[in-house]
């Protein structure tokens, strides 16, 4: 291999070696897809998936960030190349009064990755996931032909959430959200226990476009803070300024993130939050808490972190509470625990969001008994008719996947029709037999 590179996901677990190429134009992709070598090829964006979907051990990985053209905005729609990051999209479009339809907790994801993982944000209950706002996408298939897919085409929905395994997404047309300012009006409520967090979040969903709750998993009651926000309508300038692209806090001692320090931080966060407040905040400060510190994943040390995000259907509140209780009792400390209620799913075959309660957690990989604990949580989630998020997974038992994703069989079949030689390959695909 020419450019052997060790790649990991954002969680920095399971590194694998691949040849990494960064094409500068769409035309360069075709020959690579037609003759990728014996171990196949996968597209990679900014590497923010936590697990292994953008890795391909022994094969070829295409760094898509070289394809980064942004077209003009027409009637609220924009066509962009797959390697464009949401960060750049915001920098260019917010001053013109447009906002991406969906943004996760980091701006450092590409549009191609956003489609392939069908990402969601705090507005899922109101606006759905990223795939809901894509009106067309260009897909370079295993046959070397680029097709334009629209939501009327079943392959569109195999690709949205398809983790890059149906082909290389080269372009997408996205419906943008019009905004009047670059500020958010953020309502905050402090809730003493999990039940009141859930009630408040449900109420907030009715009144606000963007909602989420932070849960203190280490507290006995599962207390938390609920936020409900909307774009501010007028006044402030629209310029988009993002603070904090400093290199990682590599100097911080690894052991800093442990149960005790996290407990202290949580207590401090909770104590300093007002019982109820309304604030005007910049876009970045509300949407992208993870971007305040570059490479925060290094805080977890060389063994990295394991993200765990699941959704259980509405009505399975008991399962959610049971899981939170189990995590608390196991003394596994999750630094960023976020609760969110999802609205209807997009229709992507392997899309994660389905109506229900979603909780996302992150644990240091070295947490004692973590592998065992998460296996048990998987069982509870599957039993309740829920699922885990493939863009965050790095350790699911493969046999649970068809239980969690009923459309998996259809996906597997279609993938093999589109790509009989399985040219599109990733460590995730191998690990979970996609």
């Amino acid at each position, binding site marked *: 291999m020419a450019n052997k590179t060790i790649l990991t996901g954002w*969680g920095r677990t399971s590194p694998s070696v691949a040849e990494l190429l960064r094409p500068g134009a769409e035309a360069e992709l075709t020959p690579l897809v037609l003759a990728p070598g014996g171990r196949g090829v996968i597209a990679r964006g900014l590497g923010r998936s936590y697990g292994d979907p953008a890795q391909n051990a*022994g094969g070829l990985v295409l760094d898509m960030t070289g394809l980064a053209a942004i077209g003009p905005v027409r009637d609220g729609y924009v066509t962009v190349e797959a390697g464009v990051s949401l960060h750049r999209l915001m920098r260019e479009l917010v001053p013109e009064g447009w906002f991406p339809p969906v943004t996760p907790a980091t701006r450092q994801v590409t549009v191609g990755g956003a489609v392939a993982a069908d990402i969601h944000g705090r507005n899922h209950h109101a606006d759905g996931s990223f795939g809901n706002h894509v009106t067309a996408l260009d897909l370079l298939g295993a046959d070397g032909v680029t097709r334009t897919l629209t939501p009327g085409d079943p392959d569109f929905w195999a690709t949205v959430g398809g983790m890059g395994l149906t082909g290389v997404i080269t372009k997408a047309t996205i419906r943008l959200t019009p905004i009047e300012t670059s500020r958010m009006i953020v309502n905050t409520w402090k809730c003493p226990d999990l039940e009141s967090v859930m009630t408040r979040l449900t109420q907030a969903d009715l009144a606000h476009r963007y909602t989420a709750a932070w849960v203190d998993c280490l507290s006995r009651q599962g207390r938390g803070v609920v936020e409900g926000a909307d774009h501010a309508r007028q006044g402030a300038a629209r310029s988009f300024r993002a603070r904090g692209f400093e290199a990682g806090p590599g100097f911080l001692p690894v052991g800093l993130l442990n149960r005790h320090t996290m407990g202290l931080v949580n207590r401090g966060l909770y104590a300093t939050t007002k019982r109820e407040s309304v604030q005007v905040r910049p876009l970045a400060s509300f949407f992208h808490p993870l971007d305040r510190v570059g490479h925060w994943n290094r805080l977890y040390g060389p063994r990295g972190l394991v993200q765990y995000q699941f959704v259980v259907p509405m009505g399975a509140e008991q399962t959610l509470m049971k899981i939170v209780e189990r995590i608390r009792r196991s003394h596994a400390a999750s630094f960023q625990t976020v609760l969110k209620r999802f609205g209807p799913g997009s229709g992507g075959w392997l899309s994660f969001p389905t109506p229900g309660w979603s909780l996302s957690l992150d644990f240091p*990989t070295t947490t004692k008994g973590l*592998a065992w604990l998460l296996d048990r949580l998987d069982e509870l989630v599957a039993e309740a008719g829920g699922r885990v998020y493939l863009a965050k997974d*790095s350790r699911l038992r493969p046999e649970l996947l068809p239980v969690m994703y009923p459309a998996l069989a259809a996906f597997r079949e279609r993938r093999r029709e589109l790509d009989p030689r399985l040219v599109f390959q990733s460590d995730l695909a191998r*690990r979970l037999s996609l």
Partner: protein
Amino acid sequence: MKNAFGEPQSLLLVGGASDIAMATAMRLVRRRVRRVILAGRPSPARDAAAARLAEAGATVETADFDAFRVEEHAKVIGDVFAEGDVDVALVACGLLGDADLDPLKAADVAMVNYVGAMTAAIVCADAMRRQTHGALVVFSSVSAGRPSGSDFLYASAKSGLDAFARGLTEALRGSGVHVMVVRPGFVRSRLTRGVTPPAIATSPETVAGAVLDGLRAKSEIVWVPGILGQLTRLPGSVVRRITG
């Protein structure tokens, strides 16, 4: 593929289902291994092993592997890798010799323990290098370094294999492939039934535990029990008395 906790999901047993290989396989299946390939001669023992592993939850495939037929190794093992990545391969071809020096029997011992095991390991290593990941576990023996009166044919073959595997460890450094040499002392198993165990004897279960620990820690040499690694500093005559 291994998962975030480094747990393997597919396992190849070369040399069939010895007690040690089975004990290791059962432990791995209880964790994350789902695909097990038993490469060995067709036999009721292989069928029984396949049934036990399937019962434990694995999808079991068999491959007709014969340590003597080195010319087939590339094809037989190559086919296994063509079906999907192998995360761990255990090379455990074992045949004990006896004290009377029959040249043909001695050749058999060398063929199984050394030549066959080596060619199989080379094929595995090559395939793993291409997939850029995987662990290759080569079963040597404590006697490889200390041939004793009763089993020096076996020891001489293991000694060759041991040297080969240590060389392979160096050759594959940086390739993503982890080579691990396991040197058990006397193991009470089917292979050694009827032999009087020495002072320090171990069991297939203990060896399996040490293999799992070694895989996790990415060890290159594993002694079972671990104390044997220290004993090599003692004079040979003493060691032989303790380890058999």
